[in-house]
């Protein structure tokens, strides 16, 4: 992979120049938290953020998306907004890892999702290094480093960024601002290694994932699920903020008085009681405890069976957004019989 160096002092110029590739979105402050939004001036960008409220998935699987319009003559696909070019500036490695997981679900196999595919093609991803906080456990989930899924990635080397070029588009971006970049020197590589080592030691949360599938099978009837079922409000916040939750509902809307309307899909969650309910009224996951068990099961074990790795990326968003403080690492460590070390 092509590597270059960008002095940190020139990052703003780079952001200015790459606007020709699309509308630049970056994490900006929203109260005490952060969110990806269109960048109107460089000083709004907060690249020192720990996490955004919603992950970058909102750009690829929008909360509400019109798939078709229909009339009495049938359904017509909607393409509005799909060709909009965006550049996401400052995506953390774990979130890129999350996008790679969504790629496996939405792009691989015999039925690739054309809406997701179009957005993935038109939204560029520029990654940036980060410092873990007390709710980050991406290192345990092996999501703290990615080698694909981005156009460029900036790794911190002190007063410059080590730039990895991931795609031809990333290369075009670098070439469009070639005067800003410098070649990487041996002392830069040493600086990167030192930084990487220091970062590894900053993680405060740790969870062993290697034999999670076996542990989950054995603890299928554990009392912990009843306990969580009592606590969980089924608000769905964890699913909304999760980078790899992708369940959706599809509804036809109707224009009053006409046989016309649209077919839309919107975010859904297995925590809602309607998720497993079939026509005729039977519900395969009636109990709250069954639903929260399913969510954990699918994310930490089920996904492993199909794709070889858990779909949890360790970003900590569910930890900070759960209104009743259900803490995923605590749950996993309890299942494993290990005391949770905060």
């Amino acid at each position, binding site marked *: 992979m092509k590597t270059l160096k960008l002095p940190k002092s020139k990052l703003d110029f780079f952001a200015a120049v790459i606007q020709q590739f699309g509308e630049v979105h970056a994490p900006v402050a929203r109260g005490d938290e952060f969110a990806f939004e269109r960048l109107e001036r460089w000083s709004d960008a907060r690249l020192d953020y720990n996490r955004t409220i919603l992950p970058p998935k909102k750009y690829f699987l929008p909360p509400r998306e019109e798939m078709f319009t229909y009339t009495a003559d*049938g359904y017509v696909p909607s*393409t509005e907004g*799909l060709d909009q070019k965006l550049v996401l500036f400052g995506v953390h490695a774990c979130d890129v890892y999350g996008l790679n997981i969504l790629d496996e679900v939405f792009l691989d*196999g015999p039925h*690739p999702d054309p809406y997701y595919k179009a957005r993935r093609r038109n939204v560029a991803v520029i990654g940036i290094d980060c410092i873990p906080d007390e709710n980050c456990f991406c290192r345990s989930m092996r999501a703290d480093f990615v080698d694909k899924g981005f156009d460029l990635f900036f790794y911190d080397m002190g007063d410059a960024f080590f730039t990895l070029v991931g795609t031809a588009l990333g290369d075009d971006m670098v070439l469009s601002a070639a005067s800003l970049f410098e070649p990487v020197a041996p002392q830069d590589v040493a600086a990167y290694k030192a930084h990487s080592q220091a970062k590894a030691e900053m993680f405060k949360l740790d969870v062993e994932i290697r034999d999670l599938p076996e542990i989950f099978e054995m603890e299928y009837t554990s009392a912990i699920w009843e306990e969580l079922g009592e606590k969980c409000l089924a608000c769905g916040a964890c699913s909304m903020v999760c980078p790899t939750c992708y369940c959706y509902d599809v509804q036809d809307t*109707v224009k009053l008085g006409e046989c016309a309307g649209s077919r839309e*899909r919107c975010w859904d969650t297995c925590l809602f009681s309607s998720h497993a309910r079939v*026509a005729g009224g039977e519900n395969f996951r009636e109990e709250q405890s069954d639903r929260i068990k399913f969510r954990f099961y699918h994310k930490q074990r089920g996904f492993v069976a199909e794709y070889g790795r858990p779909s949890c990326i360790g970003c900590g968003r569910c930890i900070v957004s759960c209104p009743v403080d259900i803490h995923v690492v605590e749950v996993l460590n309890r299942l494993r019989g290990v005391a949770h070390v905060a």
Partner: protein
Amino acid sequence: MSPNVLAPAPQPAIEAVRLGNPYAPHNARIVGVQRMVEDNHLFTFRFVDPEIARSFSHRPGQFIMLSIPGAGEAPISISSSPTRPHVLELCVRRAGRVTDALYRMRVNDLVGIRGPYGNGFPVEEMVGGDVLMAAGGLGMAPLRSLLWYTLDNRSQFGKLTLMYGGRNPESMLYRNEMSSLVDRPDIHTLLGVDADPSGTWKYHVCRLADLFDFADIDPRTTHAAVCGPPIVYRFILQRLLKLGFSKDRILMSLERHMKCGVGKCGHCSIGYKYTCIHGPIFTYWDAINLPEMI
């Protein structure tokens, strides 16, 4: 003219949304409606686009997603066999918003159909051997595609046995068609009802599971395809296991809530499998191996 570098160029990715979109329903016309039993009618469809009508092909056991504009979409098993491709037959139970809307429609009305989806029966593994098809009540709807597939490809299979049971004669689907099979020498057809108040039933009066007493099944050479309400599964499985059937030779068709049909919306999940991709045909081994199966 401003060099507007922000104007997007036409893209193949956008074209893929317009053409070849896996979620796009194809127009199909209702060409026949037949009331079979209360709240379970047989609808026959033909695709409007002759190219699609010509190229649509399915495996027995697969399903389609049926769209009624304004009502939504629902998965329906295909009852017709791929060996008779000119029309698409769906035996639809009236159970929710989409099927309600379908029941209000008449011949010549337009619906949307896309598919086929699902794994279908593993016919490649079943050829050369015997096939037992056991259906209870409305379970005949998905099983019928396999029934006619085996009959139309008769030379590829060994012994064929059909067991079909219902509460009473009025609750049986395809009644006349089933009766016509009884005298065929190429399939052993056993029809049974729990009770026959009208006294007109010409065949067995007993439980579905008891029809095994009249059949000659070799578990080593037979694949058993079972479909019906939960109570049917329980008793049939008991008999099959008692006979010595291996768990992966017992095939079941399961239903779940579906919104996409292609393994993306998450609603049809059973444990960590998706009914629309790994099913709807599962083996009994899958059933006991995956949590929350039956």
